[in-house]
């Protein structure tokens, strides 16, 4: 018998706030986190982004980082802030009271430090102490060191589906009896690297993203981190259980390095397989937190896929990326936390910036926080390289 997997604590920091309280308030007040770039100078300064409102020393304070000798990238600080919240919320006391692991995810890791110090590093060794924190594993190892986690420590990097895959792996580590508890999540800080990459791909919105709108004009890059404590049913404190990770699937569309098919073949496959793994019918889903980046292709592809899977009874859908921006490797975990908030509070979460429906689709994204009976939430995360992951969270 495979144990059930429960979420017992969540943590989040994004452009719409630090912690679940601020996050929910931003949703209630329809307050976007998208605004003007302030973290670094860029020739693309006119393009809106979704920054976390704290500077690095603020984050270090929130993360309770005391080790003056070690270097902390913004990426890792965000991860630590979210992880500490999740760990505290779960009632975690001693790491070794349960078999505990950690799986984190990121796309560009310590790129913020690369941008500041790489040029200098090619010339001399002045910043040699920073070399060890430039990669993707730094966030995970700092988390493991912080909480004394020794086993099942790893990092996933599958572009924008990264942290959805970290959640899936965490759940599988519990279901195959390798772990009783696992801290999972994702982090990505805003970088010049990704801003320029998406700019060069011509998919950045000049106005702020408008998911599922006919006049959508691209995505908005965001930053942030989210973490979830997953525990097996045999060790989870019933009072702490927020929801269950009931279904998951990862597939590859094998179509194009950056684009998805118009009919959403990969998204259909991911959603159907996730439903199958949760033993659910499409009609069981109460709310879909869509990938919904606001690009021409994603929203058409994902929208078509949703209509194919759900037919004439598409449940309420929204994309929260008009609030947080697209947080890349963190998006899956951030939206998993949103899914858990929807379940715990029995509410639908809104999108923003929607005015004109897409002619190709029958559904319209939700526009405000609404009380609604929520039993099962589906969360989609799709990434470069055709990496498509769907997670399902269930009310306990």
């Amino acid at each position: 018998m495979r144990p059930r997997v429960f979420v017992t604590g969540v943590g989040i920091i994004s452009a719409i706030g630090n912690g679940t309280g601020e996050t929910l308030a931003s949703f209630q007040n329809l307050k976007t986190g998208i605004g003007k770039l302030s973290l670094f100078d860029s020739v693309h300064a006119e393009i809106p982004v979704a920054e976390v409102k704290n500077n690095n020393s603020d984050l270090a304070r929130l993360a309770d980082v005391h080790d003056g000798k070690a270097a902390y990238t913004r990426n890792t600080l965000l991860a630590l802030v979210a992880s500490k919240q999740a760990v505290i919320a779960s009632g975690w006391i001693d790491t070794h009271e349960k078999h505990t692991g950690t799986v984190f995810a990121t796309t560009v890791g310590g790129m913020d430090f690369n941008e500041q110090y790489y040029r200098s590093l090619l010339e001399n060794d002045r910043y040699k102490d920073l070399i060890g924190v430039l990669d993707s594993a730094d966030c995970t190892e700092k988390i493991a060191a912080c909480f004394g986690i020794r086993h099942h420590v790893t990092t996933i990097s599958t572009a924008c589906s990264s942290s959805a895959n970290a959640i899936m792996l965490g759940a599988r580590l519990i279901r195959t009896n390798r772990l009783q508890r696992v801290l999972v999540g994702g982090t990505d800080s805003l970088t010049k690297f990704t801003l320029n990459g998406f700019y060069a791909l011509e998919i950045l919105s000049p106005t702020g993203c408008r998911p599922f709108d006919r006049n959508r004009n691209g995505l908005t890059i965001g930053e942030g981190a989210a973490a979830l404590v997953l525990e097996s049913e045999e060790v989870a404190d019933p009072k702490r259980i927020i929801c269950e990770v009931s279904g998951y699937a990862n597939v590859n569309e094998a179509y194009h390095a950056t684009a998805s098919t118009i009919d959403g073949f990969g998204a259909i496959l991911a959603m159907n397989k996730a439903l199958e793994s949760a033993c659910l019918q499409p009609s069981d889903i109460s709310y879909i937190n869509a990938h919904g980046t606001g690009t021409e292709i994603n929203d058409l592809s994902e929208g078509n896929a949703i209509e194919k899977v759900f037919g004439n009874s598409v449940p309420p859908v929204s994309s929260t990326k008009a609030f947080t921006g697209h947080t890349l490797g963190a998006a899956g975990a951030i939206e998993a936390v949103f899914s858990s908030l929807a379940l715990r509070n029995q509410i639908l979460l809104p999108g923003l910036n929607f005015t004109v429906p897409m002619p190709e689709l029958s559904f319209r994204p939700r526009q405000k926080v609404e009380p609604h009976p929520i039993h099962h939430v589906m969360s989609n995360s799709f990434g470069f390289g055709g990496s498509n992951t769907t997670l399902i969270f269930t009310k306990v």
Partner: protein
Amino acid sequence: MDLAEAIPRLSLQKYKMKATITASSVISPQHTNSAHGFPQEINEIISDHLSCLEPDYGTIINPIQLRRMPRILKMGLASAQLCINRAGGISPDAIIVGTGLGCLDNLEKFLLEVLDNHEHITSVLPFIYSTHNAVAAQIAMLLKNYNYNITYCHRGFSFESALQDALMQIEEKQAKHVMVGGIDECTHDFMLIHSYLGYWKQPLSNLQLLNERSPGTIAGEGSAFFMLSAETGNGGPGVSIEGLHTFFTPSSATYIDTTKEIDLFLGNIGLDKRDIDSVMFGLNGNLASDASYYTLQKNFFSDSTNFLYYKHLCGEYYTASAFAMWLASVILTGRHIPDVVKLNNRPDKHLSNILIYNHIHNTEHSLIFLNYGRI
């Protein structure tokens, strides 16, 4: 913190773990790219790094598909395709890749365009290919394979995490055949930056790697892919992965009790250290990090154990344990330990298993247990 305290008070859950290696393909600094086991001739190089002997890619993959592709993708696609050919053309139920640094060369290229060229980007391709999952994704596209596809990027755990996921896929009955790979490339800038940390020795013969007794190692790279299968059904002899364990010790740790972890691991797979015929160490010539291997050789394992090493053949890199797993599997299949990998000289004896122990800077430690028998 004393990490001896940190070993879980509960013993780890026991779980069934077994997969058979049904095919492999390795591009490395040695002549490993044939299906015929251990190479006849060893490539001796005098340098501070070992580069792969790359095959003629056009004979393996349609050159049109390789156009404008960075080197690491060519290496990954070619070894994946050869692995599939050797597995009889099976399209795997999952594609899982471990890479410490991903497509590093493209990442550096794009980063320098952003930094030096005032954000005027001449080509977006390096950005697209810089994503760490580019190798696994391109393999899926090459094969039109829509199945589970994932990439681990965690220093010295990258390949091990991929392997663990592969074993779980089989155990969960989500997959019968999984292709798992470990791949990393060495770049000029990576060598330069890490030279500040004293990572590399002065140029030397790779075959003298352990003889200098000095700080630093020799850099390496490689691409190793394996087809793992739940069962072969043929009942003939073959090599199975029967255990995998990783443990992390942060640099702040004052004390690492590796022997406790090894005992714990062997106990979980129902073995005692006396059952181990051969141990393959990740010795890399760096005095500080090699000490722990020599201590285990001297104080932990029995004198009759064969001790082997491999990094003089492939160099040091985050996924070198994938090369080690290939080497161990060809040794077990060939029933012979080549002199060039022997650390000690034991009379030839019954050889039925190899334990691979690797660590990177005493931080990411991994144990992989391979067994030879009926599969």
